[in-house]
């Protein structure tokens, strides 16, 4: 299959995503500069919107990237069922673009948090999580200043009822409580998907834990799940 990794000015996790998709997972992978709109995205099986500080996080994280030329193509691609996963700044950009509900606000305690956290897998029936099991607890790093997921009550209720919550911050034993919520996210939400299940977003970085040499491969199943979809 073929992955496309979007690159905005200020993206800095594009290389890690490219490395995992191409060199670790052995899949055809290409960078897509944010101004490229001519070719369209139909040649890709999955688009990755990577982390970083697109446009310096000016105005709001992802707020300006959301209007980059390539976003129109991504929206069209997603609306016709294409698979898109946004990681960290990518997740922020997808919420700004309306491809995912809610918004990511400044962390509750105001500090940039850079550490491993435990996530409980809530839904393993999506193209992005099928290689995990429901209830599984995984360890994945976060590195963000604005990861506090917010949505109004009705949206949160829908997310839960439609099983759109993919990952929640938890203890190493799967206890999803306030104590293990690093940034104040509503319902400890760390990752979600849209109603159709083809667009996902997560604040933690699976591309930073997909290689044995780095000591943690808990994130690899995100990529395995996507690849399995196209086998």
């Amino acid at each position, binding site marked *: 299959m073929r992955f496309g990794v979007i690159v905005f000015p200020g993206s800095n996790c594009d290389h890690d995503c490219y490395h995992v998709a191409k060199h670790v997972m052995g899949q055809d992978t290409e960078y897509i500069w944010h101004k490229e709109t001519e070719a369209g995205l139909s040649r890709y099986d999955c688009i990755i919107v990577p982390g970083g500080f697109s446009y310096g996080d000016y105005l*709001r994280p992802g*707020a300006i990237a959301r*209007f980059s030329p390539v976003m129109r193509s991504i929206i069209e691609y997603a609306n016709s069922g294409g698979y898109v996963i946004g990681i960290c700044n990518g997740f922020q950009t997808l*919420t700004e673009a309306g491809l995912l509900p809610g*918004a990511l606000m400044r962390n509750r305690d*105001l500090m940039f948090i850079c550490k491993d956290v435990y996530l409980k897998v809530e839904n393993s029936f999506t193209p992005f999580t099928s290689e995990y099991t429901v209830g599984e607890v995984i360890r994945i790093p976060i590195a963000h200043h604005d990861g*506090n997921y917010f949505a*109004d009550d009705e949206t949160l209720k829908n997310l839960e009822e439609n099983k759109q919550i993919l990952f929640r911050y938890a203890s190493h034993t799967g206890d999803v409580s306030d104590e293990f919520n690093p940034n*104040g996210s509503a319902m400890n939400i760390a990752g979600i998907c849209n109603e159709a299940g083809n667009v996902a977003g997560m604040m933690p970085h699976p591309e930073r834990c997909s290689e044995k040499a780095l000591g943690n491969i808990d994130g690899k199943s995100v990529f395995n799940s996507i690849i399995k979809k196209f086998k």
Partner: protein
Amino acid sequence: MKVKVYVTLKNGILDPQGKAVHHSLESIGFADVKEVRQGKLFELTFKDGISKKIAGQKAAKIAETILANTVMENFKVVVE
């Protein structure tokens, strides 16, 4: 032709930056403030030849489209 757009967090949404400012007010001796909410002010200077009414409408559209994330923020347009 200047138009001001104020962007603030919706009521009820946690504003940790406002809270941090509030705490520092107390510690520097200003005890009379009950709450602080922090927002943004954008000053848009329109090109000549646009009426106040149109400028106000355009500013509102700009605010709704990009200056404010309407999931979590409100905006107010003030035409000078």
